[in-house]
């Protein structure tokens, strides 16, 4: 297993997994990214922002039926290269966008969206 070089690329793995499935590339055992130790931490993540780019030397791979790391099929390469994740929806901004005097039901729905995005619903 050599893995697919994704150094410098911003990847949201679960989104990429859905994009591969939509493109007809089956990865039934999921995706992982592994890379070297980094000498310095990137800036602290901002809630709702995209993850930092993968450090140089990072590789993307899947797993075989025995759970061992395995290379992605060739058809995955262009899909991975085109992967450009959108920033997650900013639920807090959606609350702020509700105009003063608006229907309280609208405000309630936005608050629920925000809380679920940050803390999740009941397990």
């Amino acid at each position: 297993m050599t893995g697919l070089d994704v150094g410098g690329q911003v990847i949201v793995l679960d989104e990429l997994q859905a994009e591969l499935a939509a493109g007809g590339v089956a990865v039934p055992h999921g995706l992982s990214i592994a890379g070297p130790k980094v000498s310095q931490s990137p800036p602290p993540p901002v809630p709702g922002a995209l993850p930092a780019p993968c450090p140089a030397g990072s590789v993307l791979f899947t797993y075989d039926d025995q759970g061992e790391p395995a290379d992605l099929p060739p058809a995955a390469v262009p899909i991975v290269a085109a992967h450009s994740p959108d920033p997650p929806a900013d639920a807090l901004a959606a609350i702020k966008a509700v105009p003063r005097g608006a229907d309280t039901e609208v405000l309630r729905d936005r608050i629920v969206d925000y809380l679920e995005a940050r803390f999740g619903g009941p397990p």
Partner: protein
Amino acid sequence: MARIETDPNYNAPTFSRATAATDLFKKEDVQALAAAMSTHVHDNAGKGLSVAPAAGSIPGSALADNSITSAKIVDGTITYGDIAAGAGGVQQQLGQYLGIPTFSTATTGSWVATTVTCSVTVSGGLHRIEVFTSITHSAAAGFYLTGIGIDGPPTYNGSAVRSPGVNYEVPISYTLYMSLAAGAHSVTLYVLNTTAGTLAISNQANSGLSLTEQRR
């Protein structure tokens, strides 16, 4: 007449001698005595009585190097003070990972190895394994397990976490004691993600994994 013909402490050779002032003196007594003394070794077995050395009378130079082994030491008598600080003979760290790792996965439902790993060669017996890391999950209330795998996925869970929020860093730290067979092994932090989403080892802090051989 009280001569003795055989000395009680010499038998190979022995010698005779007079034991009273009126005993007959024979010149052969001197010859036999000289022959016995020529080979005396204080062996307490026919060549003279053993010699009990006075306390502190045996110099270190009289002992061959490496001649004192455990057979000559009473079990359970070596104490803490007998072992030099830092000697490394009681507990020895054999392998360690320490750094800010790069690892994330969207695989769910099976154990996957992370990049927090180290290789060790052990002599067998009990070992202490310490691990610390910080993990995030992209799903609110995402649930995941961690475990330490020896040469493969772990056989039990070391921690279970339900993420308190989207991509909240959750610190995880625990210590295990495990018996390992002598030989080379890989020791790896595994994760098992059970909630759809991306699980990542945080790059905001170091992760560590250490294996120490416990010895007496």
